[in-house]
């Protein structure tokens, strides 16, 4: 087939023995991925507004474009064209650098993910571990955004995000390790191949549950959106900065959500495995459905308090993740 041929050609380019060609292809791939991320973030901005509106018995955006599809574009243009104000206490270098680095981290992680057996920047043996090492940078970058603005609300938000970090990082790593043990490899492709019979979500439901909760915290989706708790901290680090940063922060939220859903899809729902449709579509569809769930959670729950999150992390998630590890060992090793 034509598509397969193109992908095949692309794949050989990515893994070319010539370093220059390889770098060129990876750059092209990165651009394509960035475009996909942006499209996804845009679509999700719309889907979230529309879906929440439906639950809340409203109409949602319905004026700009068909079904309000262009509403977010209009908002984005409005936000970006507004005056850019940086407060006096802020550190402009860090403030501008942190969002860019965050985008970089997210893109890099998605680059490492296999979209089909051909589409992958590089097939690393320890891909899973590398992804989580890089993911570990995001809370630090978010923390920096909090301190860089110099506001008290942002500072409080930053403190909270660090507290949250302590509570969910360890269960997350244990669950990830469990997935690796079950697959017998930290290679993402083999993890997906391992799930061709039974998805990890069904093999280790406890692990899936923990990972989903932890991902909500990692992505700072409600009920863990403490850093930007609008009724308490106004908007966290966005309180003192002006509109363009808000636009960036919104886009960042959705790209991070995309990344999180992709991770869940790969680790627990077999990644690109599925009948008829090509693998890349399956992966995106799965990520899409998972994102819908993440959004639905937002509608239903109230925000958690930081000490309760700590308690949940240490008292429930950590023991559960160890139980999950033991159960998986029993099943896998028989």
């Amino acid at each position, binding site marked *: 087939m034509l598509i397969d041929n193109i992908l095949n050609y692309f794949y050989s380019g990515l893994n070319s023995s010539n370093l220059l060609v390889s770098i060129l292809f990876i750059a092209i791939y990165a651009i394509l991925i960035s475009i996909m991320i942006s499209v996804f973030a845009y679509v999700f901005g719309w889907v979230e507004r529309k879906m*929440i509106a439906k*639950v*809340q*018995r*409203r109409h949602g955006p319905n004026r700009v474009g068909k079904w309000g599809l262009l509403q977010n574009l209009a908002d984005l243009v409005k936000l970006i064209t507004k005056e850019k104000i940086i407060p006096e206490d802020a550190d402009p270098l860090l403030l501008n650098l942190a969002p860019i680095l965050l985008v970089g981290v997210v893109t890099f992680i998605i680059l490492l993910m296999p979209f089909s057996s051909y589409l992958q920047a590089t097939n690393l043996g320890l891909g899973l571990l590398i992804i989580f090492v890089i993911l570990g940078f995001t809370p630090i970058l978010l923390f920096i955004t909090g301190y860089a603005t110099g506001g*008290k*609300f942002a*500072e*409080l938000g930053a*403190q*909270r995000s660090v507290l949250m970090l302590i509570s969910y990082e360890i269960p997350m790593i244990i669950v990830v390790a469990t997935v690796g043990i079950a697959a017998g490899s930290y290679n993402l492709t083999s993890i997906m191949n391992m799930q061709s019979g039974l998805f990890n979500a069904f093999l280790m439901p406890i692990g899936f549950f923990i990972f989903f909760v932890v991902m909500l915290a990692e992505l700072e989706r*409600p*009920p863990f*959106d*403490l850093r930007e*708790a*609008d*009724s*308490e901290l*106004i908007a966290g680090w966005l309180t003192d900065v002006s509109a363009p940063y808000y636009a960036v922060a919104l886009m960042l939220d959705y790209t991070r959500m995309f990344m999180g859903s992709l991770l869940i899809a790969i680790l627990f729902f077999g990644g690109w495995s599925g009948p008829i449709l090509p693998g890349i579509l399956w992966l995106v569809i799965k990520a899409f459905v998972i994102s819908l769930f993440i959004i639905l959670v*937002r*509608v*239903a*729950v*109230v*925000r*958690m*308090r*930081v*000490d*309760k999150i700590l308690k949940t992390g240490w008292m429930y998630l950590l023991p559960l993740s160890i139980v999950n590890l033991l159960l998986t060992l029993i099943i896998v090793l028989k």
Partner: protein
Amino acid sequence: MAITRINIGPVHPSTHGVARLVVDLDGDTIVKVEPHIGYLHRGVEKLVENRIYMQSPPYMEKIDYVAPMAVDELYVATVEKALNVDVSEKASYARIILLELQRIASHLFFIGSVTNDLGQSFTGFMWGFMDRDKVLRLLENATGQRMFYVNMRLGGINREFPKDFEYETKEFLDYFEKRLKDYENFIEKNPIFIQRMKGVGILNLDDAINLGVTGHVLRASGVKYDVRKNNPYYKYSELNFHPKILSDGDNLSRFRIRVMEIRESIRLIRDSFYKMESADGSMVGMPVKLFSPKPTNKISIVNRELPRGEGLMYMVADDKKPYRLSMRAPTFINLAALNKIAKGHKLADLFSIFGTLDMVMADVDR
């Protein structure tokens, strides 16, 4: 650790109007809260001294813009007492129906704003407002206005109920009883909601009495005081009214009392419609005229159970105008208790406490 002082408000997403709270924080824990009020002070008590009696109700309605009719009724009842005007039996029931509908609307506002304060992306808020709007439509049908009714007249209300009002109200109540179960399942039984509310913001019985808090805050702390029961006005004594009392004194009790009170109001409205059929007299009061009867009582004190707590008016009557009108605003004294309740809690809880105290800043400042 160093104490951080942050300034919240006057414009803030969850201060229910323009309140300014100066909060001293130790890390994320509250050391002291000092409410600064007065941003909405309009001097209603002074304005009233320069108006003839029935010119004032529009001002009264703006005191508590969430439940305007209740404050209006309190004022008109005070004037009625001063001028010695009787309210007919039928008008009493009509007023009870309208006031209880107003109470439901106000409590729905409360449910919505509390869930919003807790950070539930507007779902409870939209639900509450959606159903509140249905109540407002009923009230519009009965009074002719959607929000600021000005429908209280000396000795009654401004006009007869329209023919379809009773049917529509009963239809709404049937719908709303079912809908209230949704609220309970979706909000009140939500584990994270309970986690955030239970045991938070406890005000024990002695403190509640000593601080003089009122309304649902007092009843959530276990004090059996509801003006409708203890000092019944109109026909509340004939309606077999049961005040709702819980004893935990925390946020969850304050929230649950509100939901229980909505149920009680629904029952009261049904009963009143039933009893109104055999009631005597006309529900229409005196038209507003430049010359009203001469006051017979120099000093009249009237208290009413407003949706937000006990309201009391102390009026010294003059010939045409009030010589002095002093109002006890329920939220004013509940806000005074904020420091005591919120001390030692996390910053996140400050807003749930502030929300469950049910602040309307216009009412605080008057």
